[in-house]
């Protein structure tokens, strides 16, 4: 199972992105400065945005999902129960686990941002996908929920998982680290412990780099 970016390019005004890389099974972390093209790359990898040139192929990937940076964009239900049902998941279980039983008939738009993100991720992670792309999954979550999400992602032992993020404090133990620099996606290494001590670009020394120390 692979996701292959074959000489993929995307242009928008002065913005340029080039990727010629292959993502295999496991947990990948993609970082890059603000505006470097992380969300654009996620859309291209998900097949939701056509590259200007190049080809994206996903041999053996039959199911995939992209979690967008802003969870509002995913809402299709008028109530929390409807929203869960729209994901085809066990509505009662999700609402109970996330503490929303008393708000089953509330609109998802009445939740705080963090609560909405939590509900969205709980529904998304209740399904299994060959390829899971998560654009800023930790944004809006509180510290406790970030750790819970970390463990859920780490427990996923199927297919390709790619996290696009600025998160600095709490991350699952990833297997491959990628960075977009100067408009080009580059592979920087596979050893998270080494990476944690060497990653620059704003990472604070001493931050924990995985859920399981």
């Amino acid at each position, binding site marked *: 199972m692979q996701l292959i970016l074959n000489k993929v390019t995307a242009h928008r*005004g002065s913005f340029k992105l080039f990727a010629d890389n292959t993502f295999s099974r496991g947990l990948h972390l993609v970082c890059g400065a603000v505006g470097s*093209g992380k*969300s654009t790359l996620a859309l291209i990898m998900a097949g939701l945005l056509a590259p200007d040139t190049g080809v994206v192929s996903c041999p053996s990937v039959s199911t995939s999902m992209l979690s967008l940076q*802003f969870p509002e964009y995913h809402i299709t239900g008028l109530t929390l129960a409807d929203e869960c049902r729209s994901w085809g998941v066990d509505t009662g279980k999700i609402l109970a686990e996330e503490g929303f039983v008393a708000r089953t008939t509330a609109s998802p738009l009445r939740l705080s941002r963090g609560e909405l993100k*939590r509900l969205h991720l709980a529904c998304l992670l209740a399904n299994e996908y060959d390829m899971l792309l998560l654009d800023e999954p930790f944004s*809006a979550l*509180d510290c*406790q929920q970030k750790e819970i999400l970390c463990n859920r992602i780490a427990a996923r032992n199927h297919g390709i998982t790619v996290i696009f993020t*600025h998160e600095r404090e709490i991350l699952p133990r990833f297997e491959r680290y990628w960075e977009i620099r100067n408009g080009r996606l580059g592979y920087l290494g596979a050893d998270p412990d080494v990476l944690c001590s060497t990653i620059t670009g704003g990472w604070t020394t*001493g931050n924990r780099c995985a859920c399981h120390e």
Partner: protein
Amino acid sequence: MIEITALSHKTLFIDHLTIGEGRTFLIGENGGGKTTLLRLLSGIEEPESGSVRIDGLLPRLIDTGWVNEYPDKSLLFSNVFDEIASPLRFQKVPCLVVLNRVNEIVEQLAIRHLLDRPVRELSGGERVLVAVAAALINRPELVLLDEYDSHLDNACCRQIDGAIAVAGSRYVIRSTQQMDTAATGDTVIVLHKGQVVASGSPHDVFCGLKGTPFYPRSWRESACS
């Protein structure tokens, strides 16, 4: 001084809370009431009961800069220059002054390269930077920032901190999930299920949170006494 008395609004209940000048951080679980409190302080919402006063005045009478975590909700104009200039233009400030001030703020935030870009083409983080520029261009007395840092890297956050310092606002109140950042503030307020459960200096507040996920990571090597 900001004073909140007998407040009841949506899920938020605060008997009495004072916030002094300086940098104040709101922290706590999702759904705890951080955004609701910021909206009340901004004057965007008025309390169902109780009062919020800033230097004795209603919040809507105070010059305020507001940054939503999801700036899509607050960006009004289609291009970056117009968006950043809008607070001054609404006040009918002369064009040359507006131009100079826009130039200053984009330099401080290192976003000059975005000036001619359509807002819809910006990334999530770039939209936050534009929203911060628009919030600070008027050098407001009160700056309210709602978890903007969850879409930015450290370099951008430092750039914004610098611009806020230059703006000279008397009150800077922001919610965050970055506890190491909150630990650098003058005051930290913890909200839990709509109530203030702790308020004080970072040392006093965070020492009470030892052993929880909210305890700053950089403090974990040195125990609170």
